[in-house]
């Protein structure tokens, strides 16, 4: 390949881990072999609140193959202080401690771990355990606790509370000629990644543990283990090379990690613990939430008042928080805004960030309300969004580093054919299917987090880049390889990325859509540093052709370092390293947020989502036949994996709109559909046509790479676009998500 020919950034490169994944060779947490491996099986409580009165374990103990049963009565010593149990993303409160005492805080709470020689023995013995409880009254129904909702006294780190009110929203609402005030609800959802949480803890015998865990942060999980069990950091290595989806559920350490490590330490053997699918419903979830949104506008559609009050569920032991209502103060221009966010305690596990936490529910409510207002005004739903475009973040009065949202509207509308939309609801049909088109705006943070990386250039010219990032399906392996290959003008095969290992350079958890920007920029900085030292060595050589060059004059490509203005004048990487007697050059790279810039600027990803639904007039069955998601996300490193991220978000948004709902029997405090047959996640048959557009957006401030991140934006606005399309199709407005058939059929028929 000749000079300047290879560009990797911006190419739709196939995933570098693709071959491993399609051949079954990528190993997930439960798939690492270990000698003498034991299997742990977790038994959960069958009540939602109370105390364990007695545990009858004899039958289980006598079951062939059972090695040990751990309960609160015989668990090993673990850390005493709350702070030792608090992981990087823990909300304020008292983190859950498995087997800590006889107290039951939520249904399905782990109360015993059976360890046996085989999986089957552990599982079957588990069914023989009998537990007597002293049952306390419980409440799992948010509606019943709404009156007791409170403003969380301690703020969760990284989560901004609602902004102070601005203007006089109440008065402006009174005075405005056109207004609506509506209640919405988004039911609790469960992440349900396809891989169930699992840990294989390999007892290495020399006081060391190698832990294969399903997590979004190897270092977060490693830190949890060392602090809970009082182990030395250098004795515990935690690996998460491949993660079978997580969507936020893997941000915090899950029960199986604690149990596998505890059993391994106690029994001095390797132990594997996996959750069952039903147990996947007893860990963190997207909180149940109620929203009241009041919007008022003048007759030209300009917003005069925005009020959004939200109440969301949390547990008794932690104040889980997310930014739910803040979006309503910054998505559109408005001088009078009042936003409130409160929590209500339920007898459930603590909720946990799920794809676009906060925005996925808050924006859904706002965007449905805005749609309702547009009909009230007789102004098109896309038009009202354009009219109220916010050119700065009015919550903080800061400038956006970029915001190509208007381009999202126009390019998305053009691709969708929006101009052919008939403004009236119930005006488009084909046979017995009513057709509706809806639109929504989407918004998500473009974060940059502190991250570090190393790059190592070897004497054979190949490159290794390393950072403790995770790839949960996001394409991290691939983009980091691309960034390294781009920096050194190498083919992808000559670059090896190393991620998913707590011993690698410092990385935040994989979440919030910040990995590409943060770890990607750190890798780029490390590559730059390597190039600098390579140049230094090259210039030092006797008769160096680069002796009079400065760093800006040279380029590294095809395993050579040479002058840009005269590519013939240069040296091979081999020559330079050989002369310097080096086998490799390793350097570090670091990034952290630019705090000075953050005083003036703020960064977000934006999108416009267009959806077409077809609703069977007699049966109420909804099909989402087309979605166009146009996103403004800064530089796109890899359009192929980037597109997949958006597709995944849109699919989950369709699930939020139509399917996903944890159904709790509040008399029992139990989720009754804790399985994938009855908690419906979108299946092949539910998903038809999805188009993804990346509008051009240059942003030299958001991150050194110009990248914004894509993991969440696809879900934000999708559920509202679908809901708005259902209204346009049927004239029926359902304000309770998911919008199931019964709600459509039972709604009052439009006049």
């Amino acid at each position: 390949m000749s000079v300047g020919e290879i560009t990797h950034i911006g190419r739709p490169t196939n995933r570098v881990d693709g071959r491993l994944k399609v051949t079954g060779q990528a190993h997930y947490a439960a798939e690492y072999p270990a000698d003498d491996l034991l299997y742990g099986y977790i038994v959960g409580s069958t009540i939602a609140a109370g105390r364990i009165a007695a545990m009858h374990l004899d039958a289980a103990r006598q079951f062939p193959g059972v090695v040990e049963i751990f309960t609160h009565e015989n668990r090993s010593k673990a850390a005493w202080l709350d702070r030792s149990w608090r992981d990087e993303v823990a909300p304020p409160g008292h983190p859950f401690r498995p087997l800590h005492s006889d107290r039951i805080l939520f249904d399905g709470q782990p109360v015993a771990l059976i360890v046996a020689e085989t999986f089957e023995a552990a599982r079957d013995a588990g069914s023989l355990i009998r537990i007597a409880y002293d049952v306390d009254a419980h409440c799992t129904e948010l509606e019943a606790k709404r009156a007791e909702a409170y403003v969380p006294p301690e703020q969760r780190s990284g989560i901004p509370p609602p902004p102070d009110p601005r203007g006089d929203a109440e008065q402006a609402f009174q005075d405005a000629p056109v207004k609506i005030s509506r209640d919405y609800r988004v039911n609790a959802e469960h992440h349900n990644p396809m891989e169930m949480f699992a840990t294989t803890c390999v007892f290495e015998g020399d006081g060391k543990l190698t832990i294969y865990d399903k997590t979004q942060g190897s270092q977060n999980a490693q830190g949890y283990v060392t602090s809970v069990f009082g182990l030395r950091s250098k004795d515990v290595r935690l690996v998460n090379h491949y993660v079978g989806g997580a969507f936020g559920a893997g941000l915090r350490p899950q029960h199986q990690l604690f149990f596998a490590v505890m059993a391994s330490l106690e029994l001095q053997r390797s132990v594997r613990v996996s959750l069952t699918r039903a147990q996947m419903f007893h860990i963190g979830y997207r909180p149940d939430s109620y929203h009241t949104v009041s919007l008022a506008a003048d007759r030209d559609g300009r917003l005069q008042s925005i009020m959004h009050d939200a109440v969301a569920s949390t547990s008794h032991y932690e104040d889980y928080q997310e930014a739910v209502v803040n979006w309503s103060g910054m998505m559109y221009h408005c001088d009078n805004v009042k936003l409130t966010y409160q929590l209500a305690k339920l007898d459930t596990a603590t909720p946990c960030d799920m794809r676009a936490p906060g925005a996925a529910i808050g924006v859904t409510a706002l965007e449905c309300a805005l749609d309702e207002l547009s009909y009230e005004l007789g102004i098109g739903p896309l038009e009202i969004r354009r009219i109220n475009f916010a050119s700065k973040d009015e919550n903080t009065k800061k400038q956006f580093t970029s915001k190509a949202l208007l381009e999202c509207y126009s390019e998305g509308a053009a691709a969708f054919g929006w101009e052919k939309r008939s403004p009236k609801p119930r005006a488009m049909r084909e046979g017995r299917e009513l057709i509706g088109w809806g639109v929504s705006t989407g918004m998500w943070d473009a974060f940059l987090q502190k991250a570090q990386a190393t790059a190592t250039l070897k004497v054979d010219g190949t490159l290794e880049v390393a950072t403790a990032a995770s790839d949960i399906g996001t394409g991290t392996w691939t983009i980091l390889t691309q960034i390294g290959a781009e920096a050194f003008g190498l083919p992808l095969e000559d670059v090896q990325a190393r991620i998913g290992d707590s011993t690698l350079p410092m990385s935040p958890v994989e979440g919030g859509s910040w990995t590409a920007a943060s770890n990607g920029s750190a890798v780029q900085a490390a590559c730059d540093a390597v190039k600098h030292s390579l140049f230094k060595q090259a210039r030092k050589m006797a008769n160096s052709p680069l002796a009079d060059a400065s760093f800006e004059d040279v380029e590294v490509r095809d395993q050579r370092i040479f002058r840009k203005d005269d590519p013939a004048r240069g040296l091979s990487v081999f020559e330079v390293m050989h002369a310097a007697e080096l086998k490799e050059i390793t350097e570090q790279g670091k990034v952290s947020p630019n705090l000075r810039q953050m005083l003036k600027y703020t960064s977000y990803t934006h999108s416009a989502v267009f959806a077409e639904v077809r609703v069977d007039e007699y049966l109420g069955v909804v099909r989402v036949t087309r979605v166009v998601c146009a996103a403004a996300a800064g530089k796109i490193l890899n359009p192929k994996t980037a597109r997949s991220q958006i597709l995944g978000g849109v699919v989950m948004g369709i699930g939020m709109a139509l399917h996903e709902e944890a159904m709790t029997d509040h008399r029992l405090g139990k989720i009754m559909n804790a399985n994938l047959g009855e908690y419906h996640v979108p299946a092949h048959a539910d998903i038809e046509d999805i188009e993804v557009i990346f509008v051009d957006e240059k942003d030299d401030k958001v991150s050194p790479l110009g990248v914004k991140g894509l993991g969440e934006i696809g879900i934000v606005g999708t559920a509202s676009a679908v809901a708005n399309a259902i209204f346009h199709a049927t004239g029926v407005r359902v304000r309770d998500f998911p919008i199931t058939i019964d709600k459509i059929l039972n709604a009052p028929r439009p006049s």
Partner: protein
Amino acid sequence: MNQIPHYPQISISLTINGTLHELKVEPWVTLLDLLRERLLLTGTKKGCDQGQCGACTVLVDGKRVNSCLALAVSRDGAEITTIEGLAQNGELHPLQVAFIGRDAFQCGYCTPGQICSAAGLLAEGHTRSRAEIREHMSGNLCRCGAYTNIADAVEDVLMPRIAAKEAAE
């Protein structure tokens, strides 16, 4: 595998990816757990262990089957193909190539099941359109939401086959 004394074990033989295995298993061991935990063929995934997700799909005598719902002893004598056995002599199956090219996966956890299921679908021979692909692949959930890309990948392999068959007829 750790031996537990006094367990009833039944002798069975299975041909897995072309290799004959003579095995002794307890009657309650599923085909899925046999593959993953005892034969270390972990390419076949467990996504629910109750027949609701398709992650464990393998081909049993050429037909796609949820291996979590099959007791190993009930398949004595069967010929089983798992994801590890689809590539021939290091050459990927056309579906595997199409899945990579179409980016028909993200986390990759549902992928072996999707690919084995698609291989079963091709062998069934009754799927003729994209709509039918979607319908007949609906037993395989993908929480990452790669459905449109999976449909593209299956179409890439299926459509030329249909065309070739029609031309031959």
